């Protein structure tokens, strides 16, 4: 290898890829051209290993205004409004510098949303870390939460929902997935397209420096301890700059001064320029001598690949350039004409009149090889289906186990995190974080928007197909619990190295499950992001296809929250409870083992339950609705009690074991409470919609009293509330929090 290393190696390309480039270009590429291919054909930009599988997703529906392929998807929400939304990963940068990694992840996804012409109205995030009793994990969690807060709070975009899980398998490779949601006039959705030969290409916002060069290729490699030199410069976010860029960009869009625009993200001018040209079927040139720089001495390829934050690329009519410059000047920002749309179909890089690189744009954006990798079912898949639940079955002290679960890292209240996020700014948040989904009112409309992020990666690891379906079903159910109809989803597919056949098998299976559920629940996929190579020293993360889902409430006044509201209300569990202890949080807590059969998911049943919840909320029959998830019925009941400050008097005789009744995680179940006066009409609706249910008892002003098959738990609610509310803060900062200080 040493003697004859090919020129492709430096750019992360394989010899096959190099040969393909030569064949397509009908000549040898020069250094600059090869560096363009290096990033554009990286996994991060080309999706070469995932593209074939992503085609399985349903992407159409009457609600979809913009499907995959643009900066973000858009769905219609009535009153002439569209909702733009997308999720993206920033895993590797966050592993290295948690504050800036998370902050710039938030910044990037926000730009994707306003690039559609939408005003961002909410952010969400999905986080995964290693064990919480580890100092590095605490440092990562503190840094990531502070980074998300530092960026989003400054912009005035409320962070309204999210999820976080802890598992040793994320120890070296945490996940930071950020989602943003914006509102757009459906007639004014903008696209990232370089139409109109002769139009001017402008770069606006921050100046270009040596930030995060080769971040795209970095994201396409595994992390390890050995090669610190490979790491790109940390990108530093400037949320104040982004706020100005947001306001200035929305102002030029409002005045119809722009033809196309796109965020400058991974691979900077190279990817944004070639993608905008590629989408329009046009060419485009960029003169690097016109790009405003922050520092001197950048090589041409550095300018083209810089991932300096808070920049956008615009395509505008030559007659509008001056007006745009004036508006950016008002906001103290630079706007520079750096190129032009051409008719030759080539993406060209120039320095003055000198041509440094010229490649047909389509070769960069569409001609990366589409790999269908070999796949192999891993041995663990069958082996781990068998599990010994005797510790759980014979646990005996149910009350103690419930308290431990409520205090455990994966179940306890996330308040310590979400109180660092401004979740109210904008005055639209009408269901705050802490329940199943956040709800925002839509300005100028009676309607509301419900938002949720979800993925139980233990399910996906143990059964990728079923787990992928469950991730969608749970996100949809969370949204339906508020009374909203699930509309559409975005995703962030976090996996290990796809060149490993067992990882690729996980990917194929999980995307199969995701596609099936999206179809069955009528929630088309409007976009997303794939993040491979999430491994640390050769150990892959559990497959984590995070789902971000939006739902629509016809009347936001009829939103339903998850906590009990009044003593005397009737409590029901909706859905079928089965003898399902596999893959459960309780088994994990007792044994530290990921094993057992993943709970069944019947997508028709899931759909029927969602429809029922929407109908019952619209009829104002539900006082509360709360999804049964990790920790099962007992945890869901306890949460509804302690958040509302109520007790419970419930009794249930069932054929399943007490352990399964309390802690089993059977899917498609929801705890609801109903005012006594609505009992008849509610129960009629249950039977006419064929919803399996059990009437468990009553909300009270006293203790948490639950009796299953004659075994009873009697616990003062304060004894449940304290561990639930306080444990995360206690676990994060014992005895001090040195990082928040720095």
């Amino acid at each position: 290898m040493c003697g004859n290393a090919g020129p492709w190696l430096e750019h992360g390309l394989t010899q096959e890829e190099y040969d393909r480039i030569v064949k397509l270009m009908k000549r040898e590429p020069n250094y600059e051209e090869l560096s363009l291919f290096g990033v554009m054909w990286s996994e991060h930009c080309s999706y070469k290993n995932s593209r074939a599988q992503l085609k399985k997703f349903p992407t159409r529906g009457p609600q979809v205004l913009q499907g995959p392929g643009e900066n973000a998807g858009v769905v219609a929400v009535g009153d002439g409004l569209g909702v733009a939304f997308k999720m993206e990963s920033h895993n590797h940068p966050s592993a290295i510098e948690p504050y800036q990694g998370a902050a710039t992840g938030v910044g990037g996804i926000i730009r994707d949303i306003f690039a559609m012409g939408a005003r961002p109205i909410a952010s969400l995030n999905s986080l995964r870390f290693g064990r919480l009793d580890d100092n590095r994990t605490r440092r990562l969690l503190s840094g990531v939460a502070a980074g998300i807060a530092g960026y989003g709070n400054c912009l005035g975009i409320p962070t309204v929902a999210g999820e976080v899980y802890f598992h040793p398998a994320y120890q070296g490779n945490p996940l930071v997935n950020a989602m943003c949601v914006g509102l757009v006039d459906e007639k004014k959705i903008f696209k990232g397209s370089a139409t109109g030969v002769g139009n001017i290409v402008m770069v606006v916002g921050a100046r270009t420096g040596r930030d995060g060069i080769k971040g795209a290729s970095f994201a396409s490699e595994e992390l390890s301890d050995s090669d610190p030199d490979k790491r790109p410069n940390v990108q530093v976010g400037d949320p104040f700059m982004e706020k100005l860029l947001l306001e200035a960009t929305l102002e030029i869009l409002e005045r119809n001064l722009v033809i196309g625009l796109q965020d400058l993200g991974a691979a900077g001018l190279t990817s944004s320029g070639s993608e905008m040209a590629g989408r329009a079927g046009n060419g485009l040139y960029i003169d690097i001598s016109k790009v405003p720089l922050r520092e001197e001495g950048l090589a041409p390829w550095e300018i083209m690949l810089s991932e300096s934050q808070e920049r956008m690329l615009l395509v505008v009519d030559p007659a509008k350039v001056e007006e745009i410059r004036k508006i950016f000047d008002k906001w103290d920002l630079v706007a520079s004409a750096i190129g032009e749309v051409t008719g030759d179909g080539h993406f060209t890089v120039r320095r003055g009149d000198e041509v440094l690189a010229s490649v047909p744009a389509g070769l960069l954006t569409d001609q990366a090889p589409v790999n269908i990798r070999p796949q192999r079912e891993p041995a663990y898949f069958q082996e781990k289906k068998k599990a010994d639940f005797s510790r759980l079955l014979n646990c005996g002290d149910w009350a103690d186990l419930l308290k431990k679960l409520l205090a455990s890292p994966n179940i306890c209240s996330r308040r310590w995190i979400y109180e660092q996020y401004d979740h109210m700014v904008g005055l639209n948040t009408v269901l705050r974080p802490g329940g199943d989904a956040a709800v925002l009112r839509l300005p100028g409309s009676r309607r509301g928007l419900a938002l949720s992020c979800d993925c139980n990666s233990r399910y996906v690891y143990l059964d990728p197909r079923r787990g992928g379906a469950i991730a969608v079903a749970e996100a949809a159910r969370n949204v339906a619990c508020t009374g909203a109809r699930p509309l559409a989803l975005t995703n962030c597919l976090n996996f290990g190295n796809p060149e490993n056949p067992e990882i690729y098998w996980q990917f194929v299976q999980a995307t199969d499950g995701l596609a099936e559920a999206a179809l069955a629940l009528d929630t088309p996929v409007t976009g997303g992001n794939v993040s491979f190579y999430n491994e640390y020293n050769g150990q892959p993360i559990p497959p984590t296809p995070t789902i971000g889902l939006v739902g629509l409430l016809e009347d936001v006044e009829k939103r339903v929250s998850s906590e009990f509201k009044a003593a005397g209300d009737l409590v029901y569990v909706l859905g079928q409870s089965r003898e399902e202890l596999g893959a459960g949080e309780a088994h994990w807590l007792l044994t530290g083992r990921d094993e057992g059969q993943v709970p069944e998911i019947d997508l028709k049943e899931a759909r029927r339950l969602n429809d029922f919840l929407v109908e019952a909320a619209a009829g104002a029959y539900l006082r509360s609705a709360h999804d049964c998830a990790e920790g099962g019925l007992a945890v869901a009941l306890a949460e509804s009690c302690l958040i509302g400050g109520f007790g419970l008097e419930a009794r249930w005789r069932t054929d399943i074991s007490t352990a399964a009744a309390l802690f089993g995680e059977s899917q498609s179940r929801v705890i609801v409470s109903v005012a006594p006066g609505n009992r008849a009409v509610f129960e009629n609706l249950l039977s006419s919609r064929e919803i399996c249910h059990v009437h468990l008892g009553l909300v009270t002003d006293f203790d948490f009293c639950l009796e299953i098959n004659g075994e009873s738990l009697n616990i003062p609610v304060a004894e449940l509330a304290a561990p639930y509310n306080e444990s995360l803060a206690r676990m994060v900062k014992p005895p001090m929090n040195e990082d928040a200080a720095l």
Partner: protein
Amino acid sequence: MFKAVVTVMLKKSVLDPQGAAVERALKSMGHSGIGSVRIGKSIEILLDGRDEAEAEARVGDWADQLLANPVMETYAVAVEKLK
């Protein structure tokens, strides 16, 4: 050309929770002999000027007006001539 470094610190009478947290962290790492830790900021300004004294006076004015808040902070200015 001169380089002025303005060091801004919280007044002694004002609680510095950042400094206190770092102090606790250093001690918990097992480092001994630590009296106290205070955290401030350092501002570097490159400027033209007649001589050091004049540059220092100007920067002092700026510190009074903007760089430090006398309600809670104190500052010190150090100036060096650049070659």
